């Protein structure tokens, strides 16, 4: 039986769609690990990036964080965390993934806030706005398209990286691939690969739509270009 045929058979076996090792549960687990990781990263990265962007400091810091994070293999951090007292399984995975989700959020938010037209900010100050209002009522709304782009990059990366948790005792869709390699089941390996790739592509498409929705029409081209530049900092996982 060819690997393709075996994968087709695996995907059509009802047993693979039931219980805690079934595709629906593993997909749910994969998504909630990813969601919590992105939220955790956002809680740390967004306030920091907003403060740095507003004050106009720390451009070098964000670049350094991004460069160093690229050199750290996700698998290494996942393994280190899985072997500590934070414990096995999903909590360790969520923290490790959050660390990799932070740099794109940090960079995009920083670049977005720094990119707000200085004249607009001067006008806001001239109207007597307090610094806090300048940040939350002028800079953040105008930076929203880029912040959304940062969320998209971070989330897509986290969904992709969450797959690796399976190698070190974690859950999610990666367990299908890992167990497939363990049993040398070609069909399962390929089926797992297809499911993971589909989830990654669906996440990317869904969040691209969200990003478009929060981007005003005339800004679309410009924001896409700047988001691509900011996302250059990001790596595959």
């Amino acid at each position, binding site marked *: 039986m060819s*690997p393709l045929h075996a994968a087709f058979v695996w995907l059509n076996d009802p047993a693979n769609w039931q219980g805690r090792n079934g595709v629906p549960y593993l997909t749910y687990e994969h998504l909630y690990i990813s969601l919590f990781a992105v939220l955790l990263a956002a809680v740390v990265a967004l306030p920091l990036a907003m403060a740095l962007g507003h004050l106009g400091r720390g451009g070098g810091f964000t670049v350094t964080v991004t460069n160093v994070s690229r*050199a*750290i293999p996700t698998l290494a951090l996942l393994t280190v965390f899985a*072997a500590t007292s934070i414990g096995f399984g999903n909590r360790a995975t969520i923290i490790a993934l959050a660390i990799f989700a932070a740099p794109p959020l940090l960079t995009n938010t920083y670049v977005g806030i720094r990119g707000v037209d200085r004249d607009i900010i001067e006008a806001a100050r001239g109207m007597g706005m307090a610094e806090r209002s300048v940040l939350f009522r002028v800079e953040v709304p105008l930076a929203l398209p880029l912040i959304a782009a940062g969320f998209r990059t971070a989330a*897509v990366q986290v969904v992709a990286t969450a797959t690796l948790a399976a190698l070190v005792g974690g859950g999610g869709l990666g367990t299908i691939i890992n167990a497939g390699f363990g049993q040398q089941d070609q069909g399962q390996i390929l089926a797992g690969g297809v499911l993971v790739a589909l989830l990654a592509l669906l996440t990317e498409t869904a969040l691209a739509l969200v990003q478009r929705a929060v981007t005003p029409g005339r800004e679309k081209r410009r924001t896409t270009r700047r988001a691509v530049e900011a996302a250059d900092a990001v790596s*595959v996982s």
Partner: protein
Amino acid sequence: MASLLAQDQPSNPWFTWDYVANNRQDILSALEQHVTLTVETILIALLLSFPLALLAYRYRRLAGPVLALTGVLYTIPSLSLFAFLAPFTGLRARTVLIGLVMYALLILVRNILAGLDGVPDEVREAALGMGYGRGRMLLSVELPVALPTIMAGVRVATVSTIALITVGVIVGYGGLGGLLLAGFQNNFYHAEILTASLLTVALGLTADLLLAGVTRVLTPWARSRS
């Protein structure tokens, strides 16, 4: 009671020179595999990326599809890519190599194109005015001007390749990733896990610094300007 309990737990420090000394051979061979795979990946990716990028540069209509395909491929997780390849290419080093070359290729093609697009029109016109042909202009004007951007791509591709090789452990060729997973499976052998992690990060940062040095040597004009 507490001391009794403590004695029951064998000590498992995060770093000891004992581990390094006792497993020197394993560490060195994992490191060697890691470096070999990295060098092979980048060389093959460079060889393939230049013709592709030049094609997309000359025939602008190709650039859109090439970059779109790049984006889609980049979204696919490495473990998934290895899962696509392994049933056909087997549990061998070439499975890791093919997967990593694909990712590196994407980074390189995009940066070579960006570099060539960044050559100012005046420079190109001046070269044409001096009687340069297309081929000579590409080799002695356009590529040198694009070099800093191309080298930036080579640096990103190299550092991410070094990090990604660890995932190759799934098909048995993960370089230092092999030690990571062995340490995890060997009752969370902390020293093995952390040594492998630190070596991978150090390898990535060293390669980045080396390539930054190469860029400086290759582009003396950029150096004197800054």
